[in-house]
């Protein structure tokens, strides 16, 4: 399926561990960033977003960190569960609205496997 890992980075963790998924972006004009989770055979689901005027944002069990200096984004998942196993994509856009029309540029994706 679309999540075959021949080209995607992978991360394997034990249940209960914390996971950190990294993403590098190249467009310094990117203003808005989103993390998506995609389970096999399904469409991506929104996890958390962050705007460029922030460097950290927390959700339920997830934290997104943004380092604009080095153009790096990370997703931290606390107490990872088997249900967290999926492909995780970062996405960026020059702005949340306006003339970018919501055109997101997606990263390559990272396969997260959580072992019970």
């Amino acid at each position, binding site marked *: 399926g679309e999540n075959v*890992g021949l080209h995607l980075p992978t991360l394997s963790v034990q249940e209960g561990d914390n996971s950190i998924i990294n993403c590098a972006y190249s467009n310094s004009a990117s203003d808005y960033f989103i993390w998506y989770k995609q389970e096999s055979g399904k469409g991506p689901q*929104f996890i958390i977003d962050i705007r460029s005027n922030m460097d950290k944002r927390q959700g339920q069990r997830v934290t997104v960190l943004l380092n604009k200096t080095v153009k790096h984004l990370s997703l931290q998942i606390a107490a990872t569960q088997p249900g967290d196993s999926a492909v995780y*994509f970062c996405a960026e856009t020059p702005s*949340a609205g306006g003339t970018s029309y*919501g055109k997101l540029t997606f990263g390559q*994706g990272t396969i997260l496997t959580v072992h019970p």
Partner: protein
Amino acid sequence: SQTIHQWPATLVQPVGSPLSLECTVEGTSNPNLYWYRQAAGRGLQLLFYSIGIDQISSEVPQNLSASRPQDRQFILSSKKLLLSDSGFYLCAWRSGPHTGELFFGEGSRLTVL
């Protein structure tokens, strides 16, 4: 609440045959609509987006076309499929220009033989 539907979920077509994938959104009006393609083991590539009826923008040159005959309907088409058109096609919407999040459908898997 808003929902997005795509069909068919799975499609196997011979090379040279036509294609029509349909996407509809419910529970919102005048959404921005998007078609993305995902090749195996890859990220998502934006193909088309639309900000209104009959307003379509293409992001990459290709063998596909898109149409938006109604406010909440977005159609992806091809007159003659190529092997390279195989992939997982995802429709997405967002509610307007002041929100960034895209909501995706469940996808349509196309295999061209």
